[in-house]
């Protein structure tokens, strides 16, 4: 427990290090605007209108609580991204029934560059890790205690996951299926009890999430829409999401947008942006191009990501050989979350991997633990592996927090690779930045 707490603190440090000094990206800015638009006018957008609306609600209240500083804009992602670390450990311990695997999983999660990247951004991809994870944790608490409040909590959290992005439906389906199988086993000939329990879990794990999802649209209903108009909105959102090819053409080489590549080749999520703020707030001169660009790169750590598919095979083997429910469940979570993305004809960028990564990382932790178990000094093998992961993760961390262009040997490469187009759009003079339409969000008091 202490080890998990320590890893969590370490994750908080990694996710929060110099966060207020990381330039604000366009996504971050528009996330805040979208939150205001949604909560004050029920508007979807300007950014990512086709996704459900929970982010708008959470960010809006964060802006109210913390002002328009870094905590207001990114505080929710920072919190949820960091809390994923202990959750990975707690869930892995319950699924795979081993504390060591749980700690390995938490460690791998805490130092993953993609996780760190999105725990430091306002957009909501990290929610897709957090809400299903906490829902699964509560589901296990229900199984351990038999108390339905845990299952109700699980249903609510799955609903919040759905209200973040629809891909939360995949772990929900797998968890629901596991519950049905469990009920089948426990109520062999008691048909009436079986039907009642089916209805019970259907209510708690299907109706409750649907209800939570619906309620997050209340600001939209406030525009005068009735329930009969809501399916048309969902249809519109679905059509956009299922055929989405990006809001704007990418200005850089955009090749890592196929999910099948993630675990077979080194992949990266690329997020370059310009921000013309001067470091010292001096408005008299524009910063140089090199100082105004930030390249955030969420590189997959090859020592972890390339082990995912072998790990799933080993997990499957354990499921078959030992009829291990946890192995089946974890495999199901991974495959159900991953295969639809692989099969999708539209581009799937690596940010979406965060809906798969918790299960992938738990599988890798199991794999490492299993392989190390074949050696006499298995602790040394595990420790060596983790040290190697950390060594590789260190430079990736700098890239994930946007410090890549500050590294001399990388600067030219990054500029050439991703930012050539930005140079053409470099404004020649400062233009008015903030229109005079301040929202109901309280006057900013930046978090120091």
């Amino acid at each position, binding site marked *: 427990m202490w080890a998990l707490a320590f890893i969590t603190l370490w994750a908080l440090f990694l996710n929060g290090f110099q966060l207020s000094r990381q330039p604000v990206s366009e996504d971050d*800015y528009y996330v805040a605007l979208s939150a205001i638009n949604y909560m004050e006018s029920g508007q979807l957008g300007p950014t990512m209108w086709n996704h459900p609306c929970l982010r708008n609600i959470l960010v809006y209240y964060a802006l109210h609580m913390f002002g328009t500083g870094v905590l207001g804009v990114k505080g929710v992602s920072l919190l949820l991204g960091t809390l994923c670390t202990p959750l990975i450990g707690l869930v892995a311990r319950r699924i795979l029934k081993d504390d060591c695997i749980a700690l390995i999983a938490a460690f791998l999660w805490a130092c993953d560059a993609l996780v760190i990247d999105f725990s430091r951004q306002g957009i909501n991809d990290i929610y897709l890790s957090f809400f299903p994870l906490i829902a699964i944790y509560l589901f296990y608490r229900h199984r351990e205690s038999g108390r339905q409040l845990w299952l109700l909590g699980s249903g609510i959290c799955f609903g919040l996951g759905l209200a973040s992005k629809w891909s939360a439906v995949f772990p929900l389906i797998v968890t629901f299926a596991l519950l049905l199988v469990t009920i089948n086993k426990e109520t062999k000939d008691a048909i009436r009890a079986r039907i009642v329990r089916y209805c019970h879990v259907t209510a708690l794990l299907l109706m409750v999430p649907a209800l939570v999802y619906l309620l997050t649209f209340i600001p939209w209903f406030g*525009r005068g829409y009735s329930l009969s108009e809501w399916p*048309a909105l969902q249809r*519109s959102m679905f059509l956009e999401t299922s055929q989405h090819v990006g809001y704007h053409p990418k200005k850089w080489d955009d090749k890592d947008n196929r999910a099948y590549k993630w675990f077979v080749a080194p992949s990266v999520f690329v997020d370059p942006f310009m921000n013309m703020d001067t470091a010292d707030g001096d408005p008299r001169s524009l910063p140089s191009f090199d100082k105004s660009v930030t390249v955030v790169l969420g590189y997959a750590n090859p020592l972890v990501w390339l082990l995912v598919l072998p790990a799933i095979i080993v997990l499957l083997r354990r499921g078959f050989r030992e009829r291990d429910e946890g192995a089946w469940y974890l495999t199901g979570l991974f495959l159900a979350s991953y295969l639809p993305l692989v099969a999708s004809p539209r581009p799937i960028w690596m940010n979406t991997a965060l809906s798969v990564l918790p299960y992938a990382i738990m599988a890798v932790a199991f794999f490492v633990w299993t392989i190390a178990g074949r050696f006499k000094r298995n602790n040394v093998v595990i420790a060596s592996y983790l040290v190697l992961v950390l060594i590789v993760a260190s430079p990736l961390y700098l890239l994930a927090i946007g410090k890549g262009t500050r590294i001399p040997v990388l600067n030219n490469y990054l500029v050439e690779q991703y930012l050539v187009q930005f140079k053409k759009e470099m404004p020649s003079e400062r233009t008015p930045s903030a229109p005079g339409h301040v929202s109901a969000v309280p006057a*900013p008091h930046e978090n120091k």
Partner: protein
Amino acid sequence: MTTRRSIITCIIIVLLAAGALVGVNRFGKISRVTGPVGTILAQNIIKKRVESPRDAYKIWKEAGYRGRTVVFVADRWESFDPGELIPAQMFRAYPLQLYNTARLLEDEHLDGVTFLYVASVNDVIRKIVAILPESEVNRLGALARKTKDFRVSDKGVFVTRQGFPRWYTTGANFSNGAEPVLLYVGASYFRNTEPEELYRQLSASGQMTDCIILCNETGKEGVTEKEITRLNRFATLIGVVPSSADSKQMRTSETPLQSAGPAV
């Protein structure tokens, strides 16, 4: 977990779900604000003549209408990219200077092309039914086929923008909606259509309304004295004295606006 407790839980959740469905539906409907309602000939509804669409928006806004369907009658649907109206924010330092996009658009980008969009983001309207010439509906049908969410039929074209619904149809195919609408009639519509024809179509539809705006669309390409004269004739047909002068109320109900309940 006893069977009895499971059943009780199921019942509670089903009741909660039903309550939530009824609740959000009612919340949506009572969020609409409407005035006294009648047919286009009714004397108790607001009927105003304005020079520009911008004036129409101001009348709707000042009257406090909210969550409404607008029936927009004109000779063409003018498109623009709302994304270009929002300033690119190259300077983004903490604490962020944030704003409400709807208010920004209202204050700085309200014009004859954007007024319906501004009305939508400011929650005055929640859907648009546009009555247009057949050639324009056909043009929009071809454009709609390039979008992701559309339906094209003999009756017209349905398309959404970021989930916001729009119907494009002709006067002949226009049918009565279930709720009273804000009716906007632009002079440009009468370039190729006689006012008697539109009057007959609207009357036949039995469409209810609480506000009719007749807009001269001053400055709009193609709007000449002929169209203004025809708009005057249309005004006479719906029972008001025409005027092409300044924005002028032709008849205004003294009855205050009301928040519409489910009966709307």
